[in-house]
């Protein structure tokens, strides 16, 4: 460790002075290794890799200034206090001094991590940039059970659950969700908050099994910091939309396992009250009338529900009076949609997301993942309800446009709505259009669920369904994409026509007519596809095969000639390069070849899948 003064010739210099091993750091700080690890996690200190490892390659090195940074932190003293306190409790219990043990347990030393958050993230945008891991960890622990043996506390799990719901309610309220993807690990979401893209992973709503192979101490240290960080972020975000934080939920909805819905109602009530305060007296008068009507409704409810328990009523009244929550009426969620139209200061992306599911009304069956869809559908402007008490509307409501089901048989089928599988919602969100529901109906195998995080152009491989979605998107924008390859052929035709005689020009004119016919046919197919016609397109595709075969022979000859020219050009180019440049060029070539091999593998799999499907159809 650094000394105050040493004469020349006896100083430590270079890496020996800059870096320190873990053992020496722990000894210098006079804490145990577990506490040292916790401190490093909370303060964001991580091991370094010096170029010259003074004491051997097998050791872990820390920067000396990082260790000095840890030494001056008040947390070290607090951790020492905690250790001493535990020892006192243990001694009191051993001496059978129960009173002293109880007194000590009632006053444990505690610490707060607020200062660390401000220290590590000076500005809010810095915190948002680092929020991916935080959100993933919080959502994971929200789904974990509190099990004996592990040090996962019950309070912490409830806190994580609350924080994750609050975050989801904010994203849903501000329509900031951009991408979703269902994978084996869980459901990925991507949101855009104040210009920062935040991606997190939520476990599936099934039971999580803890194994012995995971060291939870490290995860719990990270979680401790992340809980504080997410609390600060939620505070800032809620106040940016004029909603008080922390929210107080309707206890009745909370008891009915509808926390996310309760949060949405709280946010709409809070923002409405804020808007009301800023408007004129006339609006205040309207509000008074509304409050009078609400009072009348309350009186009627009191008369009707004399038999219900008084304690619940009093709690509900207290919550409503404190925050002027609207009563739980059918269609209360429609207010969210009405208010969302009032906001004008939104960017284009948010407007697109806000209007995707506008005017659509969803009903969730029991077996679909409710929490996920309750998060996604309001984030894109839709209205949603579910089975059970506390839901805004019931299954028999005739305005429902879509019912999300995942069960082979239905108890009752309404003709005025579409019965679709949950994947339809996720695919619509990723495509930003309302996809046709035909492929997602009950009992059918849905189309492949494509990842929105893959850039198909950069990959060089475009799945078939991605092309279909692209065409649907273009149709939604009232555009018509040209047939693939038309531009190239036009160029070829124009080049060749300059060198041909009259008979050749006549043949070129005939080709153009054929291409125009093909283009018209393509546009007709596109329109039919939008309408949902499935079988006629197959027969059209079969008709398309024969003219393509004729073109192949000519293109082969042209390809041979072009290959020779390319090889000659390559040889000339590489001859002029230096050795370094030649190596770099070779590496680039290898990278491109690897990518091409990947694409070929995907295409091969596609062919195998198609042949398998066709053989199944024959049987």
């Amino acid at each position, binding site marked *: 460790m650094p000394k105050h003064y040493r004469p020349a010739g006896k100083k430590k210099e270079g890496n020996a002075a800059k870096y320190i091993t873990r053992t020496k750091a722990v000894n210098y700080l006079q804490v145990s290794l577990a506490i040292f690890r916790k401190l490093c996690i909370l303060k964001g200190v991580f091991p370094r890799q010096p170029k010259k490892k003074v004491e051997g390659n097998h050791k872990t090195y820390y920067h000396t200034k990082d260790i000095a940074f840890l030494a001056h932190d008040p947390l070290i003293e607090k951790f020492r206090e905690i250790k001493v306190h535990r020892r006192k409790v243990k001694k009191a219990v051993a001496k059978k001094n129960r009173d002293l043990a109880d007194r000590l347990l009632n006053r444990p030393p505690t610490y707060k991590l607020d200062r660390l958050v401000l220290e590590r993230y000076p500005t809010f945008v810095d915190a948002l940039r680092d929020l991916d891991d935080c959100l993933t960890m919080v959502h994971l622990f929200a789904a974990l059970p509190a099990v004996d043996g592990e040090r996962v506390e*019950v309070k912490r799990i409830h806190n994580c659950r609350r924080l994750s719901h609050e975050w989801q309610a904010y994203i849903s309220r501000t329509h900031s969700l951009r991408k979703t993807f269902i994978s084996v690990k869980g459901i990925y979401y991507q949101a855009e908050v104040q210009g920062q893209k935040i991606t997190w992973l939520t476990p599936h709503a*099934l039971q*999580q099994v803890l194994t012995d192979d995971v060291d939870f101490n490290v995860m719990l240290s990270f979680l401790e910091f992340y809980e504080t960080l997410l609390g600060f972020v939620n505070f800032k975000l809620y106040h940016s939309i004029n909603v008080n934080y922390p929210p107080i939920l309707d206890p009745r909805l*909370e008891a009915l396992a509808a926390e996310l819905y309760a949060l949405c109602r709280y946010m709409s009530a809070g923002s409405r009250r804020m808007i009301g305060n800023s408007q004129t007296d006339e609006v205040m008068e309207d509000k008074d009338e509304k409050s009078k009507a609400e009072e009348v409704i309350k009186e009627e409810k009191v008369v009707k529900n004399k038999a219900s328990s008084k304690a619940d009523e009093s709690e509900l009244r207290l919550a409503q009076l404190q925050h002027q929550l609207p009563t739980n009426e059918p269609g209360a969620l429609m207010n969210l949609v009405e208010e969302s139209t009032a906001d004008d200061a939104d960017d284009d992306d948010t407007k697109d997301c806000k209007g995707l599911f506008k005017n659509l009304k969803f009903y969730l069956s*029991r*077996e679909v993942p409710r929490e996920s869809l309750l998060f996604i559908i309001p984030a894109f402007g839709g209205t949603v309800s579910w089975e*059970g008490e506390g839901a805004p509307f019931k299954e028999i409501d005739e305005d429902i446009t879509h019912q999300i089901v995942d*069960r082979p048989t239905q108890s009752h089928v309404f003709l005025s709505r579409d019965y679709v599988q949950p994947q339809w919602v996720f695919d619509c969100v990723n495509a930003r259009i309302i996809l046709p529901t035909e492929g997602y109906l009950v009992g059918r195998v849905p189309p492949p669920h494509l990842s929105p995080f893959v850039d198909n152009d950069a990959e060089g491989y475009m799945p078939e369904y991605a092309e279909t979605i692209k065409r649907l998107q273009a149709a939604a924008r009232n555009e018509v994409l040209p047939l693939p390859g038309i531009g190239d052929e036009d160029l070829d035709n124009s080049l060749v026509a300059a060198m041909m005689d009259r008979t050749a020009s006549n043949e070129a004119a005939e080709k153009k007519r054929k291409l125009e016919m093909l283009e018209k046919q393509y546009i007709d197919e596109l329109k039919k596809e939008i309408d949902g016609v499935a079988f006629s397109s197959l027969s059209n595709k079969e008709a398309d095969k024969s003219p393509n075969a004729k073109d192949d022979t000519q293109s082969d000859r042209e390809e041979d000639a072009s290959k020779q020219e390319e090889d000659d050009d390559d040889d000339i180019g590489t001859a002029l390069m230096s050795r370094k440049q030649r190596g770099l060029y070779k590496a680039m070539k290898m990278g491109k070849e690897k990518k091409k091999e990947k694409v070929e593998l995907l295409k091969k799999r596609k062919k195998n899948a198609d042949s398998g499907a066709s053989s199944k159809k024959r049987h």
Partner: protein
Amino acid sequence: MGADGEEASRIVVPMAVEGTSEQLAFVEESKLQKRKENADWAVRNRERRAVKRQRIRDEHKVTVRRPEDFVAAFRNKERDFLRMRTRLKVRKQPPAEALSSKLVFAIRIPGSVDLHPHIRKVLRKLRLTTVLTGVFLRATELTLKRLLVVEPFVTYGFPNLKNVKELIYKKGRGFFDKEPFPLTSNDLIEKALGDHGIICLEDVVHEIATVGPHFREASRFLMPFRLKCPERRLQMKRKPYKDGGDSGDRGDKINELIEKLN
């Protein structure tokens, strides 16, 4: 120092075939070391836990018990039995239809291990043989009578939908083909309960929460829930809850207790 640096710079990347420029896929040595260390730690951790469990069992076996302990245990059993009979005679419990909910969640609370055979039999019928376990029951006359029999060792009440859902999603274990399994997939639930129209975890929750026609099958499918011991050990007095203790009927306050234990 310099020699080490030179050796490091001379590390040769393995080639697929001599003469060609292709590289084999390789992983850095430090990463491989880390993986090996993690695997070793997992093995050591498992062994350490097993040793701990075995030591706890051995300590119980070796304990010396004196004759006064046996006498006291016998007298406690007799006293519990007499109190049970008195409770059954004196207590007038309300009819099952008058209760606020048909769903009851019963938790075995810590207490003595010396039970009268009759009480132990009733606890086994309720599947509450281990401390800090809970089961869902339908509120019938017979069930309420049984709960009255075992009142000093059990606490029960009416859970709300949130706690029912959280218990089943986080602590539920299914019982199928004479083996318990975690509810990590809907396939096994469909195999076990598909005949009754229950095909997924949410259906189980719905059946339990609404006490539907197949409540018995769904409840028997779920093994007793293992609950976590709270941080500060509860007093768990054997007096009834309304008299300041921890046992017996809690009504809706069972939700607070469940949130502490789950």
